[in-house]
């Protein structure tokens, strides 16, 4: 593989954002994803190759390592930040349709629940796998989810809850969405959530980790 793409992939995996970033300490003073993405484009590497051969591969490795408990939340946050720095350079190519997302996922933490970090982590890994993420934030009402589904035809919906007191609001949200859009796939996750609970409330999938959500999206959700 091209040397720049290899470096770019490694920087995503290690969370190396730019040359000024002091993290990781052993890469101090080296180019990060910001510089390498720019250099890759200047070298004439196709944006699609930058995305699929470097960024997505790097983020996928991060997702797998996180699932295997080899790395922790802060490592994923840094990897996502590095990914985002590279994606800034690719934005114009999405606008011009030279690059296309695999699909869209509308994601949010359900009504009554203010927890953000788990949902954000999942969003980052999904985004890093080539999907467009519409993050509705926290404490999201069923109506707000439905409105977002209306605005993004063909999207998948992701619901997060950290509390046992709020996971019950997942059921109301799933029903609300499916009553109008029965074909929309809903994926759920969060600390107290289980596969059994997903089946009970009519959700299509439960994932205990971000990479599981990515694999579900990539294999079982038709891109829009």
């Amino acid at each position, binding site marked *: 593989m091209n040397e720049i793409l290899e470096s770019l992939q490694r920087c995503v995996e290690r969370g190396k954002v730019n040359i000024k970033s002091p993290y990781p300490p052993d890469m101090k003073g080296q180019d990060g994803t910001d510089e390498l993405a720019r250099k890759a484009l200047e070298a004439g590497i196709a944006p699609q190759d930058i995305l699929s051969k470097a960024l997505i591969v790097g983020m996928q490795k991060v997702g797998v390592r996180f699932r295997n408990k080899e790395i922790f939340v*802060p490592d994923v*946050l840094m990897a996502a930040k590095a990914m985002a720095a590279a994606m800034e350079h690719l934005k114009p190519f999405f606008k011009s349709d030279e690059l296309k997302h695999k699909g869209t996922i509308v994601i949010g933490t359900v009504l009554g629940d203010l927890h953000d970090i788990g949902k954000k982590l999942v969003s980052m890994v999904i985004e890093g796998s080539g999907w467009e993420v519409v993050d509705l934030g926290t404490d999201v009402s069923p109506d707000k989810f439905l409105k977002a589904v209306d605005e993004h035809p063909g999207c998948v919906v992701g619901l997060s809850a950290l509390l046992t007191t709020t996971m019950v609001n997942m059921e109301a949200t799933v029903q609300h969405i499916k009553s109008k859009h029965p074909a929309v796939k809903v994926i759920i996750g969060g600390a107290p959530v289980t596969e059994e609970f997903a089946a009970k409330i009519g959700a299509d999938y439960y994932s205990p980790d971000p990479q599981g959500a990515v694999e579900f999206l990539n294999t079982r959700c038709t891109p829009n």
Partner: protein
Amino acid sequence: MMTPKQRFTAALTHQKPDRLPVTTHHVMPYFLTKYMNGISNDQFFADLGIDPIRWLLAYQPDESKGEYYDPHHVPGYLEAHRVTSDTWRIEHEAIPDPRYETIRYKFITPKKTLTTVLQSNEYTSWVSERLVKEKSDIDIIAKFAVKPKCDVAEVNKQAAEFGERGMFRGFVNSFDVYGQPGCWQDASVLFGIEDLIMATFEDPDWVNSFLNVMLERKKVFIQSMKGAQYDVIELGGGDASSTVISPDIFDQFVAPYDSQLIQLAHEAGQRIVYHTCGGMMAFLERLADMKPDALETFTPESMGGDTILAEAKERIGERVCMIGGFDQFHYFKGCTTEETRKAVRKCFEEAGSGGGYILCPSDHFFDADIELLKAFADEAHKCVYQ
């Protein structure tokens, strides 16, 4: 037969009690109102046969430093009467919000007014606007925030009144209005956990300065606890679990601070339980290395944690008392009493061997069936040590 206090004390000091001590974490006002006709904390324990705990946090202003009790503050659930001064005044105002009770707090100092917003529903409260918005805000806190001390006389008065009835618990002081006992955890409440994590990568010196500000306030409080007749006091909080931070962050930004507090607490004659709701398995030895007397909550995988109780017992059971491990989500609601009893028995078999274990839900609960709570307590009564 041991008194509940003797039973808890035996477990906390790694001895065998007469039977498995069984208790809970906080008894939530929501639960008492919804399920038990608003009875008192003490009545909750008496009615259900659960070994009682009582919580108290009592502050003492240092008048020589111009500190006084906030005349506008009425202590809420688990709160101490707030201590303020003319250079650290706390005012609040209600903000209209159709969904939640919303209150903005202003911390007024001669240099700058810091603000935070707290929201509440019937279950709990949370911060919707962080107090520390600029990095220099920690200098304001360092310079002007009061450093409350423990009201030992009040603690001992209530401890004497509670007597042998159970375990008398306190906390290391959290930040005014809303915070957590651990230094890292308190800082995460004030700045936001995600921002704090990112700051450890981008500006670790600032994070250390921030944690030192938290540490200094807590040191004053802990050093003033000498003679307070607590059975155990709580340190820690959820944001230092392995489901939130990494071992590196724990080693660099949690352990160096909280282990100092634990040592000071021991010097003041206090026992410490370190609270970690969330993942613990990746940090078990690290947590024990801080030398707390006990660890909680040992949240099982079925509740979003990662605890394998038998493995935890094997790895650190000789070094600390273990509190928790019970899955209240699946066995306090929606199951049979037999299933609840079986879950109790499983915890006892996995962590009870040789003592040093207190059966407890993995943190507090909001909803529960009374019959299942009774079965929880009753089965624990049958888990007898020979």
